[in-house]
């Protein structure tokens, strides 16, 4: 193997701005430096007080975190369920209009969700899911579907036909074959998609804010956004700390599951 020095140097240089930003973010949450000062000074844990005491007028951070985890987890599960079955049908089953459906999945992504919010609201309202976490979960999952379907379809394409044939020959139904034979083959892809959807749900702000404005199920993004609008008491360092608190779990998640996440690509074409 050849030396990795050159890419390392280039990458390091390119990453300096980003690294600096986040480094200073980290520093600011533990010090009392003024905004704009380059030299940090005065260590304090004051900005992290929200961890052990509720901020006045705000929900408990741990409750909010739990809500967020629940929200992200359910959304992820739903995305996995829906896209794994739909992608299989598109990849492997002989159904009319597969081409159009697959193209359609991509086109879906072209619909700007924010501008469709009003209509989405009306539908949720009609089916009685407005102002419920379930409603937000469903919408978020629908938004993530196109990506999920495309990614998983690529992976299904790489599963050897022979093992599916073998299972059918052994007497299994197509559905059973999918569940017990094919699905386990794309586990890496499912893991990747799961992590990706989790990240996406974790950072979702608009949907919970608009579609579940009730106080009962606040998520972290909404909690965080609540901190800025207060222009007379805006506490930048506190905001940064909460922001960091919000980022850290998913960052850790990425570092831990990076191997799995690197399986986002399952091929798809031979041309």
């Amino acid at each position, binding site marked *: 193997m050849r030396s990795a020095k050159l890419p390392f140097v280039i990458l390091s240089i390119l990453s300096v701005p980003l690294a600096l930003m986040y480094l200073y973010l980290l520093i600011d949450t533990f010090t009392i430096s003024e*905004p704009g000062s380059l030299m940090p000074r005065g260590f304090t844990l004051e900005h992290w007080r929200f961890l052990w005491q509720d901020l006045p*007028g705000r929900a408990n951070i741990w409750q909010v975190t739990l809500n967020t985890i629940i929200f992200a987890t359910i959304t992820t599960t739903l995305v996995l369920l829906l896209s794994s079955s739909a992608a299989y049908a598109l990849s492997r089953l002989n159904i009319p209009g597969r081409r159009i459906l697959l193209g359609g999945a991509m086109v879906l992504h072209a619909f700007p969700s924010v501008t469709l919010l009003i209509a989405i609201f009306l539908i949720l309202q009609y089916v009685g899911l407005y*102002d419920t976490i379930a409603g937000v979960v469903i919408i978020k999952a629908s938004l993530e579907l196109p990506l999920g379907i495309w990614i998983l379809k690529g992976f299904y394409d790489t599963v050897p036909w022979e093992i599916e044939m073998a299972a059918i020959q052994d007497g299994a139904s197509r559905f059973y074959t999918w569940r017990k034979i094919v699905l386990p083959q794309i586990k890496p892809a499912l893991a990747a998609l799961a992590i990706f959807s989790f990240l996406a749900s974790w950072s979702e702000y608009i949907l919970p804010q608009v579609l579940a404005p009730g*106080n009962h199920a606040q998520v972290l993004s909404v909690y965080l956004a609540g901190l800025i*609008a207060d222009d007379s008491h*805006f506490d930048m360092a506190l905001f940064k700390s909460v922001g960091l608190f919000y980022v850290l779990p998913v960052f850790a998640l990425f570092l831990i599951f990076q191997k799995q996440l690197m399986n986002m690509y399952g091929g798809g074409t031979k041309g």
Partner: protein
Amino acid sequence: KDYTISVVAGGSSDADSYRTEAIAMAADILMREAAVAGESLNIKVEQRSYNNWDDFKQAVTLAAESGKAPNIVVTGHEDIAAWAQSGLIVPIEDYISLDSWPVNNIYPNLLNIASYNNRVYGLPQDAEARPFFAWKDHLAKLGYSAADIDAFPDKIATGEYTLYDMLNDAKKAQDMGLVEPGYGFYPRVSNGPDYWQFYTSFGGQLQDPQSHRLVFDQEAARKTYQFFIDAVKMGVTRKNHIGTPWDQWYAEVAHGKAMFWHGGTWHYARYTGKEGLTDFFGNIQFSLIPAGDRSGKANTLTHPLVYLLTDQKNDDVQEIAAKLIQIASEPRINTLHAIKSSHLGITKEQLNIPLYANNRWAMEATERLLPYASAMPNDTDFGNFWNIYWKGLEAAWTGQKTAEQAVKEAVTELRATMANSVIIR
């Protein structure tokens, strides 16, 4: 009888907690009254505050569409027009008598601001004004004597000291090195009602008093736009001032980094609180916004929040809610909010409440500003109207367009967007 009354306040931070708590207190009083009268009444008040206006309005309108509107909404008066027309809210005058206490003690111009189509839809929840500020020490160094400085607000009120005089002083201060370039005149960092004050300073009018139609005064707009172009040209205001972070801005103005600026009465709380300015009156002079030129007049703008009553399709509930609003407007209760959040009172009697009377800022600001305060009109088209005005201002300010061009485009857009409902002069 059991009632659950929900009250939701927009744009509220911790300091504004009395916006909703006042209703809870009112409920307590109303229940006691009922008990004394031998009726059984049980009211539960649910409170909720939103920091963010957009989220708040979205939530309220969507909730209303889905039939889950909160009973009482605390919001800016400008929402009345749209919400009244859509039937989201009902006139409060249908449930309480305007001649009763304390409604009859509320400043009539505030009550006017809470009206639409000649009907009173809500009661003002607080008042404020948007003063012009100057750093006293810089004024002194420019050569103003202590007496001059004390007389400064009067000179402005009479129109003797204009916006362009201010620019010249700002330039001088910068040249003398009192403040850094760009800090001579240091306006609000984002769009807001404040920018209508300059339009008014240059003689602009927002609404035709007879027809109640919106008015776009081309000359006033042009002058306003030109004023900011000139400020940039003179170097006393930065071209890219809009978008400066609020906390940076607050820190700067509270510590004399700027010569002149403008803000809101509630800034007092921030300067003396979080920014740690101990001697406000020793350092800062405040006044009306100066007149633009000799033809205009000094002014300020108030942007009261109002208690609104939503349509619950149930008169009994609405009546209870209306009564709560009425009680919450009692001078004593309202003063809690006014002082805690550095807003101004809504009733005349508040001047006699010790908490209020002992607050120098509240008293002085009320006296100096409130009588001259105008407000934005309640009109369903006002939002559009405002956007167009602001777009022109921003384009001129940042040097994208000349004042004339900006006005011309604004007019084109006004014509295209709202044809009949706006008078273009």
